[in-house]
């Protein structure tokens, strides 16, 4: 939404602030000013001048020497390269020491404008410059009378020595607003003016909407039937005859220009003007093209085709409301008129329509038809039906004022359910309690009435009546907002909610946080990955056709294939980031992520999916399978998972190296997996070295987290160590050996540690050499030789069963 200060002053003539003051005050009262463009910011000493004579330049073929009358008595000499003017023309002249907004080429305007000084052009003194419309910072689109290149020429009879920017409507400022969806009334110059009047405590003078009675009666010339009052709560129509198409006056053109609308002719300009002024779109039909002189407002037929006035064929269905005549559609309600009823230069009589359509339906229809027009943008906000007749009369007033035609008497007005003003009852103390203020009922009344909210007081009871255009006022809190806006948000005191409370993270969040901090301590930096990905990610990860990860939730309206499904695994995202780093030659990367994957309970989705928090570690460079395994265990140890982890090499993750992957188990539960990436997957992601991935499913981890710490007395009795150097059949795993060592050494076992492993030529073929140190200790006595030997015997017996021999 835009408005020009000058236009606003038509309704708030006492407004006397600078454009900047206006911006600040309006923003603080709730009409947020996004930008403020002061049109004459860089225009200085520019007056109208009459060209008295044009002489050739003695030393330059392309230059001429002009004498101008600028109303001071003395002629001013100006040398110029322009050729579009003749003696007698009245032109804008910037005098010595003045300033213009831009160069004659147009384009982006310099921040501080361009200063103009007297000087010599090829030896001939020049005391200023004649200006093009571009040099004045304006645009030919809105000044169609300006020449394509050359000096702007005022109409004959323009007085000399006047302030030229003012004559061109450039002593103005344009404000652009962000209007919130509850304030439909502010999508209009009048709405803004009303807010401005309230903000600056000035009087507000809306247009009178005076039209003469007019001869004849519209009801005799036109019949209107609304078949769907749900979609068209109100329809008004008037007829204007004896039309005289002409350009609209300059003042109207300039105001349209301020809103970025190009002037076309008086009829079009009037409907656009009223649309901007009232926020009520209007449409004009050629009366003689309405078959049967009958208008029916009805839904389209399914599959109906209709050509709109931009000559595009639109296909309609029964959800789209149309304006029809006896034989068929002549317009799509609230969106665009038809080619068949369009106003052309030959028009003699027109039907003016101002209606109220259902906003939600217009929004859907505009989408369906594929055209969001200025009009539909207004309607879809949901207009006040009471606006239609006001706008209609205002348009007819302007038709008469501009001599564009003669309105026929009467107005067709189909308006079944009249919208009534809303009345709110509340008390001053409720409002004060909500705001934390201590305003008296009288102060509240005074504030509310600035906003045309008429207020009855009875003690501290307020009865507030809101005009129908204020569709946002229904209950006490809405009144409180009005009070707050004009009392000033800044004037409301500051306090803190009373009462003490204990804050903190939820249990899960605090576990996640501990994990994150552990990962960081271990050298992993935190990655943020997208929740959505391409379904192709599953192929890159070599997931089999029946892999559960392929059960992904699809987004109906994705931003493209790459963002079309919700991830069921964090692997793709992590690999993507490892790949980015690898391609950028970043070395020794360790990343982690703590975020959700989304596992549907069934597809298509009928209930919310299982969102599972995953801790994902990804690394390449200075790391290997076992360092990753160690990091994973440390993170879990930190959470209080201090028992033994088990690793199951029958891990199904297709994207991991088949010989270098494992599920991690704790107390029989699968917490996640880890491994080296499958070489083919590395190729798919363009990662040129071994990389590693580990994932912990936090939902599996949470139940094992232990926070309580109980001190164990430090050992008082000495420990004993025994080394076992063994020849182990290649098929026996360390896990199996450790199972034996743990089971067999029983309660005396304090620690077991693999200190050597060797596979190679030095060892008997089919075997590997491994060496463990077993540390034994009793809590309550020094272990005896006998006890130690008993453990060693049992261990050796167990090892024997695995086919393990001790080395000599």
């Amino acid at each position, binding site marked *: 939404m835009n408005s020009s200060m000058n236009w606003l002053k038509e309704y708030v003539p006492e407004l006397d602030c600078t454009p900047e003051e206006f911006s600040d005050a309006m923003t*603080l009262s*709730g009409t*947020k000013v996004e930008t403020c463009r002061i049109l004459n910011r860089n225009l200085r000493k520019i007056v109208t001048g009459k060209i008295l004579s044009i002489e050739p330049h003695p030393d330059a073929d392309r230059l001429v020497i002009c004498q101008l009358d600028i109303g001071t008595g003395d002629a001013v000499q100006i040398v110029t390269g322009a050729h579009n003017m003749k003696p007698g023309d009245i032109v804008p002249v910037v005098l010595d020491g003045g300033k213009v907004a831009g160069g004659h080429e147009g384009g982006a305007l310099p921040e501080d404008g361009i200063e103009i000084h007297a000087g010599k052009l090829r030896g001939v003194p020049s005391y200023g410059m004649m200006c093009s419309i571009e040099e004045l910072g304006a645009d030919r689109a809105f000044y169609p009378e300006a020449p394509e290149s050359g000096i702007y020429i005022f109409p004959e009879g323009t007085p000399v020595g006047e302030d030229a920017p003012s004559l061109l409507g450039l002593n103005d400022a344009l404000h652009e607003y962000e209007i919130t*969806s509850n*304030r439909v009334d502010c999508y209009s110059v009048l709405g803004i003016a009303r807010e401005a009047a309230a903000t600056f405590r000035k009087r507000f003078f809306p247009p009178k909407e005076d039209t003469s009675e007019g001869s004849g009666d519209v009801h005799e010339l036109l019949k209107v039937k609304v078949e769907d009052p749900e979609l068209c709560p109100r329809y008004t129509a008037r007829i204007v005859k004896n039309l005289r198409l002409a350009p609209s006056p300059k003042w109207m053109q300039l105001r349209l220009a301020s809103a970025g609308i190009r002037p076309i002719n008086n009829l079009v300009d009037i409907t656009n003007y009223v649309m901007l002024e009232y926020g009520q779109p209007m449409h004009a039909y050629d009366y003689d093209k309405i078959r049967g002189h009958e208008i029916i407002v009805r839904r389209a037929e399914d599959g109906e085709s209709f050509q709109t006035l931009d000559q595009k064929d639109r296909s309609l269905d029964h959800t789209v409301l149309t304006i029809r005549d006896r034989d068929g559609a002549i317009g799509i309600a609230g969106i665009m008129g038809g080619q068949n009823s369009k106003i052309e230069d030959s028009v003699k009589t027109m039907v003016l329509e101002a209606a109220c359509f259902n*906003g*939600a339906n217009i*929004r859907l229809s505009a989408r369906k038809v594929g055209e969001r027009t200025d009009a539909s943008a207004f309607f879809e906000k949901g207009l006040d039906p009471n606006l239609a007749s006001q706008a209609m009369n205002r348009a007819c007033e302007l038709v008469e004022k501009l001599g564009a035609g003669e309105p026929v008497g009467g107005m067709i007005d189909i308006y079944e359910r009249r919208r009534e003003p809303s009345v709110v009852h509340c008390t001053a103390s409720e409002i004060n*309690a*909500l*705001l*934390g*203020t201590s305003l008296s009922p009288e102060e509240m009344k005074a504030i509310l009435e600035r906003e045309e909210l008429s207020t009855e007081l009875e003690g501290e009871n307020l009865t507030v009546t809101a005009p129908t255009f204020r569709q*946002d006022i229904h209950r006490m*809190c809405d009144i*409180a*907002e009005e009070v*707050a*806006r004009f009392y000033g*948000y*800044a004037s*409301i*005191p*500051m*306090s*803190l*909610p009373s*009462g003490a409370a204990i*804050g*903190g*993270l*939820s249990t899960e969040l605090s576990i996640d*946080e501990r994990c994150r901090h552990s990962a*960081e*301590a271990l*050298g992993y*930096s*935190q*990655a*943020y990955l*997208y929740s*959505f990905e391409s379904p192709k990610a599953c192929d890159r990860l070599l997931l089999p056709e029946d892999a559960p990860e392929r059960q992904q*939730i699809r987004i*109906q*309206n*994705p*931003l493209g294939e790459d963002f079309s499904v*919700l991830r069921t695994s964090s692997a793709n995202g992590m690999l993507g*980031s490892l790949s*980015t*780093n690898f391609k950028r030659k*970043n070395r020794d*990367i360790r*990343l982690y992520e703590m*975020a*959700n994957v*989304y596992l549907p309970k069934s597809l*298509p989705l009928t209930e*919310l999916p299982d*969102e599972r928090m995953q801790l994902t570690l990804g690394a390449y460079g200075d790391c290997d399978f076992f360092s990753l395994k160690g990091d994973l265990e440390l993170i879990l140890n930190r959470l209080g998972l201090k028992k033994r982890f088990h690793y199951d090499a029958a891990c199904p993750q297709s994207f991991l190296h088949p010989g270098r992957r494992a599920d991690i188990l704790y107390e029989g539960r699968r917490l996640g997996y880890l491994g080296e990436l499958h070489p083919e997957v590395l190729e798919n992601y363009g990662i040129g070295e071994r990389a590693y991935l580990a994932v912990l499913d936090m939902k599996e981890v949470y139940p094992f987290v232990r926070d309580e710490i109980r001190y164990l007395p430090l050992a008082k009795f000495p420990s004993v160590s025994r080394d076992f150097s063994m020849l182990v059949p290649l098929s026996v795993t360390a896990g199996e050996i450790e199972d034996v060592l743990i089971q067999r050494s029983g309660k005396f076992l304090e620690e077991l540690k693999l200190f050597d492993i060797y596979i190679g030529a030095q060892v008997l073929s089919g075997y590997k050499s491994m060496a463990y140190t077993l540390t034994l200790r009793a809590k309550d006595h020094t272990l005896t030789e006998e006890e130690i030997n008993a453990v060693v015997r049992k261990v050796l017996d167990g090892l024997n069963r695995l086919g393990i021999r001790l080395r000599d």
Partner: protein
Amino acid sequence: MDHTQLEELRKLAEDAIRRAADIDALNQVRVSFLGKKGEITNLMKALRELPPDQKKIFGQKINEVRALIESELQTQLPILHRRMREARIQSETLDVTLPAKKRRFGHMHPNTRALEEVERIFIGMGYEVVEGPEIEYDLYNFEKLNIPKGHPARDEQDTFYINESILLRTQTSSVQARVMEKGKLPIRMICPGRVFRSDEVDATHSPSFHQIEGLVIDRHVSFSDLKGTLDTFAKELFGPETRTKLRPHHFPFTEPSAEVDVSCFKCGGKGCRFCKGEGWIEILGCGMVHPHVLEMCGIDPEKYSGFAFGVGLERIALLKYEIDDMRLLYENDSRFLEQF
């Protein structure tokens, strides 16, 4: 064996002790004189051959010499120890300007760094930190927030839909209704989380980003409490000089509503490139929870009132750390992450 011989041996020993350059050499001397096969030990052995009267005299003599050597050795030991330590210190001078050996810490993502700051501030004011689902029912994301089907506010938030009734939440406000519905009052919570909107990726947009929702519901909660809370928050986050400005705004689920600006923490409000000359930076939206929202969640607006606010996490992170391109947040380039 005579006295002269003993005397010479003593001199020899003293000489050797004096000449010993280090503790090893000194030990050598000890061994060669006092060891099992040392000179003194040999003499002692030779005593056996002597007649008893001489045995006693020479025995005494040898013991005297032995004691002398022993005491010489004892004197010399700490001297040598000290000398050696000093020599070692002298020889071990480091170029302390050689590069440090560093282990590598991991780094927190700037989003999380900002989030933890925000959480710390609100936890300090007694807020619980909770979470809600990212994939959400339309009911919680819109309907219960006073945004029924067909409401224009739905158009302002380009929503990713899964189907008619399930969507990717567009705002963490969806958690408000979930928390209120539980019926446990009063409420004082913040809810950080991921939200989604159908925006193409560019320097200032991302189809997924993060918000932190705040909600307080209690008896007698007022707009002035909201103002005070946010002012406290802004001063904690951006420094004690920070000022806040509330501008009226509209959200369907709060009334009255406001947007909040903070004075630019680069220029202090004078206007600079950072705040685009405004002196103020918009950081959040807030308001008093709409009574209809309370009603829909089974809370009596006659008895309870409350406020809610929503902060864009990326906005805070970008501002605080002067990051100029949002895409950096999702690339995870280590050169970027390691700055945080």
